[in-house]
């Protein structure tokens, strides 16, 4: 049950899920522990979170595999468990949601930097993503979401790895931008135009941005992508930027605040709207409702 690209092409706008990490921490993920370790130890928590988002209205639910590449897992000595960690994450989501919900495999940065800035060869990055995505695709997902990328080199290697593992799976690739006085750039200096072009060339079907910004900046980012890309755009916004209040982390954007910006996202060709850090099932419900209202109203 894929047909994702056909649905997007027909003009349908889909709602994706929200933050994962903060929900895991609420449920007891210990300080500094590897979030993907929980795939092995607490699959029931992953099922619960997937169910919460599906019930909230998410039509796309992500797997807890953001840090599931063996390069990233090796920080915790878990690279030997790469297959098991990724497979259990897919199974947990599948088990929790109904068949009409699309399962999206999250795939984040390796945490290592390519030469010459860092110490990793491109081949090592490619091999890491291929190993992770092979395990995921063998289990079966509806799309791959390569996200929170900052280096275009690593992002394109990830997209190419995904494409080499499957010629047909829909691939989304999103990067994280900061607003500077010269416009939006990733910390590595990548512009939205560069991202839109290079990610599509590498084989991404859907391009866009996640994390690093609240919804107002994301509206501007979507507009910029729309200028440089004909592909469906994916936006997963934070609920604002984290602030410290009485030693507690707070994200200030309410579900209503974020939902009020949905019409502007839709005007910019956004085909999938979800949440990132600080968003909750309530945010996802509000986003889904706003999408429906815009279409009927």
């Amino acid at each position: 049950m894929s047909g994702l690209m056909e649905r997007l092409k027909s003009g349908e706008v889909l709602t994706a899920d929200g933050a994962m990490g903060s929900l895991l921490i609420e449920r007891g993920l210990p300080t500094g522990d590897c979030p993907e370790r929980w795939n092995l130890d607490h699959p029931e928590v992953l099922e619960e979170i997937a169910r919460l988002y599906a019930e909230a209205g998410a039509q796309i639910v992500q797997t807890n595999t953001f840090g599931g590449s063996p390069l990233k897992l090796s920080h915790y000595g878990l690279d030997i468990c790469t297959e098991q960690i990724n497979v259990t994450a897919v199974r947990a989501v599948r088990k929790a949601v109904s068949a009409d919900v699309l399962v999206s495999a999250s795939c984040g940065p390796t945490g290592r930097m390519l030469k010459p800035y860092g110490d990793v060869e491109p081949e090592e990055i490619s091999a890491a993503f291929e190993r992770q995505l092979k395990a995921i695709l063998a289990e079966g997902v509806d799309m791959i979401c390569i996200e929170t990328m900052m280096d275009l080199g690593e992002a394109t290697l990830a997209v190419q790895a995904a494409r080499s593992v499957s010629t047909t799976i829909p691939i989304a690739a999103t990067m994280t931008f900061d607003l500077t006085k010269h416009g939006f750039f990733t910390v590595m200096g990548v512009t939205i135009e560069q991202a839109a072009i290079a990610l599509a060339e590498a084989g991404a079907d859907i391009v866009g941005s996640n994390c690093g910004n609240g919804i107002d900046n994301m509206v501007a980012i979507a507009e910029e992508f729309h200028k440089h890309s004909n592909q469906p755009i994916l936006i997963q916004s934070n609920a604002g930027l984290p602030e410290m209040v009485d030693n507690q982390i707070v994200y200030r954007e309410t579900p209503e605040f974020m939902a009020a910006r949905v019409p502007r996202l839709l005007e910019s060709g956004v085909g999938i709207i979800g949440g990132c850090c600080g968003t909750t099932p309530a945010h996802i419900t509000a986003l889904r409702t706003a999408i429906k209202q815009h279409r009927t109203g």
Partner: protein
Amino acid sequence: MELLQQISDQLEKGDTVKVAELTSQAIEQKLDTRIILDNGLIAGMAVVGKKFKAHDIFLPDVLLAARAMYAGLDLLKPLMIEEGIPTIGKVVIGTVQGDLHDIGKNLVGIMLKGAGFEVIDLGNDVTPEKFIDTAITEQADVIGLSALLTTTMPTMKKVVELAKERGIHGKTRIIIGGAPLSSEYAGDIGADAYCFDGIKAVECVKGFVGIN
């Protein structure tokens, strides 16, 4: 002096080979070691820091410039030791226990080294004991703590508490940095300062060792 300007310019471009060549030339011409350091390498890194802060350049440019700086610094180090030229101060840095994010910490290290400080980088996931033990044995002027995750922030407080216990609080200053932090948090846990970025960290550490 033109040679030193060239060192600074090539460092800014991130040309490791040229910076090493030019630094060797400066050494052969018997230019004062301190002046090669200050007016060549440190001057170049200061420009890089300013441009990065203004978003005129990005992380890759800074990392390449830092590599070029190290190439020059490696050549000067033996001379500095031989001539007994002290570094302007010593800083122990690391990402606190449980936190594996190190881009911010690495940048602060680069900026501090680029400003002439000796930097001991303990890496990621560093325990409070390791921070304090190292600061004591190395007689560090400042400890720099980095955290990106809110869940790892409490470790910073433990470092400050251990510094008090071991009697170096107030003598060895503690600065903190990382996305979720603030000056209020620094005040709450008894750290000496919160530094928003590498440039601010350099300013702060300079202030603590009495350089303006």
